[in-house]
């Protein structure tokens, strides 16, 4: 897909050149004026079409980031303009706060856990669902369904089922596994695993759909050729399917990592405003809200926001540089050579 983009942008200037300058061998004055007119027009068009998006982007993304960086240098309760400049003090407090170190660990756990749990299961499910089996459509819908349900519904539903006297514990009791009953949400030793389980349940459908789409784009001929050459099913999957699914896998992993770093709503719904850190499920985002808005420390909260932004940015850039590079070469990294 990416190569075709590069090709197209290579073709375009060549074609234009042939039409304008190449008509009689030498560029004539009217032709040049016409091209100049087109240029201005193109620029106006670009400005007009991109304008709203640029305004929105600057107003709602760039400006808030800049303001957060500014507020982060102040002790500020949110009333009026910030006046109490404290330099980097907020940042030193962040990095010496054991609570913040804990949330970093929780986020890291979710990032790695999501990849390790969801990736293999989703690949297996996608391979299964790529076969012609009965009820395939229904199974696909069922697997994809959790992804479509809103986070609030998912959070409320699971928190009711996982309560100490909830459905899961009752189920375990009635099938004779009463010994496995647990405080799934409030036991600090397992709450993070519970969270990982809920996240995996919710987001695996998304991974499966992505992988299915990736599988569909692998040409049938490759499989046929391999089969003729006597390759076994597993050999085909390992040598053909997985390598050709690579770009899809890498993009999915990227989305999963970013999503895990930004995790907020599920935690906030299930564990509420206060006890996520006690249960050991707090994330960088819940830390920011708890220590910023809920405590009325807006300067500190903004400093936390900056730290989260930088961490996400670094992760995203490193991933793009080292993992996604071969997929995006030509499309994102550099202009195609004219």
């Amino acid at each position, binding site marked *: 897909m990416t190569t075709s983009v590069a090709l197209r942008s290579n073709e375009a200037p060549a074609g234009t050149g042939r039409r304008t300058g190449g008509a009689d061998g030498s560029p004539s004055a009217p032709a040049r004026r016409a091209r100049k007119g087109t240029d201005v027009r193109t620029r106006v068009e670009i400005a007009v079409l991109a304008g709203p998006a640029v305004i929105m982007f600057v107003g709602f993304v760039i400006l808030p980031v800049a303001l957060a960086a500014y507020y982060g240098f102040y002790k500020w309760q949110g009333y009026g303009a910030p006046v109490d400049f404290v330099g980097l003090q907020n940042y030193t407090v962040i990095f010496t706060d054991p609570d913040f170190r804990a949330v970093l660990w929780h986020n890291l756990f979710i990032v790695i856990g999501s990849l390790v749990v969801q990736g293999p299961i989703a690949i297996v499910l996608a391979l299964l669902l790529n076969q012609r089996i009965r009820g395939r459509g229904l199974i696909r819908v069922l697997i994809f369904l959790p992804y479509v349900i809103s986070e609030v519904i998912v959070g409320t539903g699971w928190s009711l089922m996982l309560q100490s006297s909830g459905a899961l514990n009752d189920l375990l009791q009635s099938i004779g596994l009463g010994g496995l009953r647990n405080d799934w*949400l409030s036991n600090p030793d397992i709450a993070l695993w519970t969270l990982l389980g809920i996240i995996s349940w919710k987001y695996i459908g998304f991974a499966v759909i992505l992988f299915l789409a990736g599988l569909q784009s692998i040409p049938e001929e490759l499989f046929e050729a391999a089969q003729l050459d006597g390759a076994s099913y597993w050999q085909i999957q390992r040598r053909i399917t997985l390598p050709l699914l690579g770009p899809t896998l890498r993009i999915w992993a990227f989305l999963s990592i970013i999503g895990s770093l930004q995790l907020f709503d599920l935690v906030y719904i299930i564990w509420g405003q*206060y*006890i996520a850190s006690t249960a050991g499920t707090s994330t960088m985002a819940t830390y920011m809200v708890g220590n910023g808005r809920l405590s009325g420390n807006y300067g500190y909260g903004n400093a936390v926001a900056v730290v989260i932004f930088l961490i996400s940015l670094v992760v995203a850039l490193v991933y793009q540089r080292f993992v996604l590079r071969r997929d995006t070469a030509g499309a994102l990294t550099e202009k195609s050579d004219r």
Partner: protein
Amino acid sequence: MTRKIRATAAIALIGATALVAAGCSAGSDAAGGDSGDGKVSMTFWNNSTTGPGKAFWQDTVKAFEAKNPNVTIKIQAIQNEDLDGKLQTALNSNSAPDVFSQRGGGKMAAMVNAGQLMDISDSIGSGAKSGISDGSFKAFELNGKTWAMPTNVDPEGIWYSQDLFEEAGIEGTPTTMDELNADIQKLKDKGIQPVAVGAKDAWPAAHWYYNFALRACSSNVLNKTAQDLKFDNKCWKQAGEDTKAFFDTKPFNDGFLTTSAQQGAGSSAGLVANHKAAMELMGAWDPGVISSLTPDGKPLQDLGFFPFPEVSGGKGAPGSMMGAVGGLSCSAKAPKKACTDFLNFVTTKSVQENYYKAFNSIPANKDAQSVVTEPYLTTVLKAYNDAPFVSNYLDTLYGQNVGNALNTSVVNLLAGKGSVSDIVSTVNQAAAKG
């Protein structure tokens, strides 16, 4: 031609975008004001989202509007756990409601210092002055001025089910921690969950610590700490030890950490309302909350009250109580006459009697207190009137930042995640953030 249309459309789109962006900043100033023709409209935020409490405020506003035809008041009820944060955001962005619930303490001090509250000292009517005790007004005084009108008093103690106590063979009510612990054991032996606590909301668990602090620390220490926010007196540690010793007896309901305080039958108030737990520590708003959660939505017939048990060896005067005065503040920008008229109206005897009936808790006006008949409320009133010292809840007293950290660290202790000394260090850490 099409291109022209497209360009026009794009320009229109840019214009619309700019308008929307501008609207975001300009449109927020919707709160109240005098529109020039003598008509005044005000917004009013409170935390009564359901049942008789919600109806009470609607009826009260209607009655006030009937008396003052030029005033309209728009009520917005916000769930209790969301009210503080939402109010703070509104105050910060200069779009505060004209009238809103006030709890005093450090939170009120922050609003006063930011110039967000109206000084109502000169507007307190004679009815309110004579009906409401000086002690209640004192809760809303700062820098020699009054910043809110008391509407109710909410002293704290333990609410219990008389039936469940009887079932467990408990006679009378405990007055010391040893007696309370013995009663808890009796309840456990009968398979009854002794104490409900809504630790998901943090503050209900922290209230146990507040009360142990009230027993361990003198009133001077409690008030001095509100000034300097330094928790270095050793009574804070003692209160932590007492709290931990009590928590270690495992007195609470199953899954207390994910139990909320007031929402639904699974909340701590709901557990008491449905006889799933024998007692809970809570302010005097609890009977109203409990009655909204009983199966038939009526007050709990066998509800009883006893003050927090005494702890031997502490510096706190015996009989001291935790308790807040609830009130209403006007924002600095509110129309002064209409707003203070409304505040005075809420304190009149008939409205205060309706308040008591709706919330099943104690009105601030002493003339209205005479209609309080429930034995549990008269017990509260007697303890309150006898108390040598009443302290505001510590999270309110010490402000949002330190209060939040204090609550969270007590929940950590409850979950077995932190030590007693962590309470003090967490609170000091919080002070560095604000």
